[in-house]
């Protein structure tokens, strides 16, 4: 059925729609910015928009993995804060400490993800609760041990947050690099395929001989590591670690929104990284436009809320029509692992 959808070229994939929406938003941005007497495509503006994508991008890529596996991660803001602090305090302004600091921060992040993953996969606690609880645990630790910003990033490290190659910030390039790696993981590795299978239907996956736990654990570990990288990038931009920087950005809910905006199915099993990047870009452009319009901060939230629902509504109906086909009775009976098609199509 999915193949059928692909055979009809007139029908856009949901990723296609995401990028169509992005183009529309870009056009809108260009018009509004021009009306304000500025150039939307000036290098300064492009750089501002891309910078806006990098942090949420890291976290949303990780969140995509977790959602594909059928879980959720609400602890990402706290992981990012913790990583920025561990990184900053370990570096203590010394270039020589950078490798150790990065390893420490990402190692701790991976550990947190591991615990999340184990709790979800083996204790059967819903990802929503497991990661909500983990978030609270980390919030308590941060509140107890840090009364404000701490540590310091050396100049060399801060360049990651400040350097531009043309109009493209280095941080965005790193984020895109990670996206490519995760796409390869999902498309080319067995565990990547299993991730789709487990997220699509655990039972089908199990009956097809897939061990359902490892993909879930891996998704959570990678999600935390990516949140840790977001934290390190925040450290580079802020030059200090901050116990509140993750929650300030509201990255938990916004990353989930970006993932769904990008066409990934919240119930898991269907979606891809490319769509997520589109979703993140839509948010960044939208924020840029509202900034140029000097829209009241409260109204900005109203617009965000409406756009999230309406944008998802555009293709959610279509998806729902297509979806049952994937778990067609005959397919399930043949124990065909869903992943390959799902990975390619969406």
């Amino acid at each position, binding site marked *: 059925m999915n193949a059928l959808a692909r055979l009809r070229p007139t029908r856009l994939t949901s990723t296609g729609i995401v990028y169509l929406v992005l183009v529309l938003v870009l056009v809108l941005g260009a018009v509004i910015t021009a009306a304000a007497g500025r150039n939307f495509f000036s290098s300064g503006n492009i750089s501002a928009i891309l910078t806006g994508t990098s942090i949420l991008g890291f976290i949303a890529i990780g969140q995509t993995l977790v959602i594909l596996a*059928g*879980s*959720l991660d609400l602890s990402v803001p706290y992981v990012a804060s913790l990583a920025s602090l561990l990184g900053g305090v370990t570096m203590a302004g010394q270039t020589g400490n950078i490798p150790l600091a990065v390893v420490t921060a990402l190692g701790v992040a991976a550990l947190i993800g591991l615990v999340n993953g184990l*709790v*979800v996969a083996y*204790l*059967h*606690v*819903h*990802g929503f*609760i*497991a990661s*909500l*609880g*983990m978030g*609270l*645990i980390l*919030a*308590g*630790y941060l*509140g*107890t041990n840090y009364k404000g910003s701490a540590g310091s990033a050396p100049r060399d490290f801060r360049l990651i947050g400040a350097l531009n190659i043309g109009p493209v910030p280095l941080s965005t390039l790193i984020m895109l690099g990670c996206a490519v790696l995760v796409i390869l993981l999902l498309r080319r590795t067995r565990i990547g395929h299993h991730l789709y299978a487990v*997220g*699509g*239907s*655990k*039972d*089908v996956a199990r*009956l097809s001989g897939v061990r359902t736990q490892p993909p879930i654990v891996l998704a959570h570990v990678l999600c935390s590591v990516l949140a840790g990288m977001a934290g390190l990038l925040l450290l580079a931009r802020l030059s200090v670690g901050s116990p509140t920087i993750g929650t300030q950005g509201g990255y938990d*809910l916004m990353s*989930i*929104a970006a993932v*769904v905006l990008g066409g990934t*199915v*919240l*119930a*898991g099993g269907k979606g891809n990284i490319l769509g997520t990047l589109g979703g993140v870009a839509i948010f960044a452009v939208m924020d840029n436009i509202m900034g140029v319009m000097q829209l*009241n901060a*409260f*109204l*900005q*939230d*109203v617009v*965000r*809320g*409406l756009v*999230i*629902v309406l944008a*998802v*509504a555009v293709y*959610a*109906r279509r*998806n*729902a029509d297509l*979806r*049952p086909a994937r*778990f*067609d*009775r005959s397919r399930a*009976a043949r124990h065909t692992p869903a992943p390959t098609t799902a990975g390619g199509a969406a």
Partner: protein
Amino acid sequence: MTTADATTTRGTTLPMSEGGTAGRLGRALRTPGGAVFVLVAVLLVCVIAANPNFGEPGSLVRFIGRTAPIAIAAMGQYFVIVSGEFDLSMGSVVTMQVVLAGNFIGQDESRILPVMLLMFALGALVGVVNGLATTLLKVPSFIVTLGTMLALSGLVLYLTGGAATGNPVDSFRQIGRGGIQDVPILDVIPYPAIILLVLAIAAFWLMRRPFGRTLVAVGDNPQAVHLSGSATWWLKTRAFILSSLAATVAGIILVGYAGVHPSVGQGYEFTAITAVVVGGVVLGGGRGWVLSAAAGAFALELLFTLLNFVGVASTWRDTVQGVIIIVAVAIGARAWQGGRRRRSAEPITPGAEPRQTGTTPTTPPDPGTT
């Protein structure tokens, strides 16, 4: 398909309708929905041990009054969760109602009734919007209600300039702050406790009606219900309306209890969802009892109170809370697993996306006991 449907229906009604009383009770307590009552009892004993004054009937009934709004919100959230959805807009609805009460009632008693009608109408409207966007536009409820949460709170803050004019008139605030005075033994029965009791009975009754049973069934297997001829969209929309109305009642109580402030209601959705899950209700729908959700709220409040009494350092409270939530739910998940075998071993994914066909062909018919 029909098997799955029948199982669920049996699963929810069994403990209430079959077997001897003692046996039923024993079996019920071993499910997460029943275990939460044990948890409440244990926490209560701990709290009283930490502070014997708390055990006095007067203190206890006051505690029930103060827990009422979150318990009511949890029951509202239960309807949505058991049907397989999420309602993240709850906190914003509470905030909206609190601010509305402050700005529109003001010091004018004659406005209490019309403004309350307006509040309930707006509450229901939010529920309708959430429900229709979820069911007709097929947007996952997690996203729909996230959108409503952002839009609603932004709109309220924009229209009010971020702060209400002031507290509403005292007679209105009595709903949340006052009570029946001079009661023997108890001293005072707070109005919120009475409201909670009435709503709990109503909710219990509602869940035994066809509406309640179909709602659980739709959470367990939407397609089965769809095939049986029920209108899923209207069922779920009613669940969302109930949730928003519960938030409205919570808001009315809170504006009395605490007064007007734009931060009243913030994070309420997460507390309510946590309470529901601690009450043994499974995220993803199809399992759990409405009174357990209310009990989950009591367990949470008792936990906070215990932390206050024991004097845990302020900064570590979140951590303790996080650990306990995970542990409680992990134990609950085991209990469902033990009671109902592997079907529930699968933590069903959040939201909206109907999982219909995924489970149908593969899930072995569950002879399931409970």
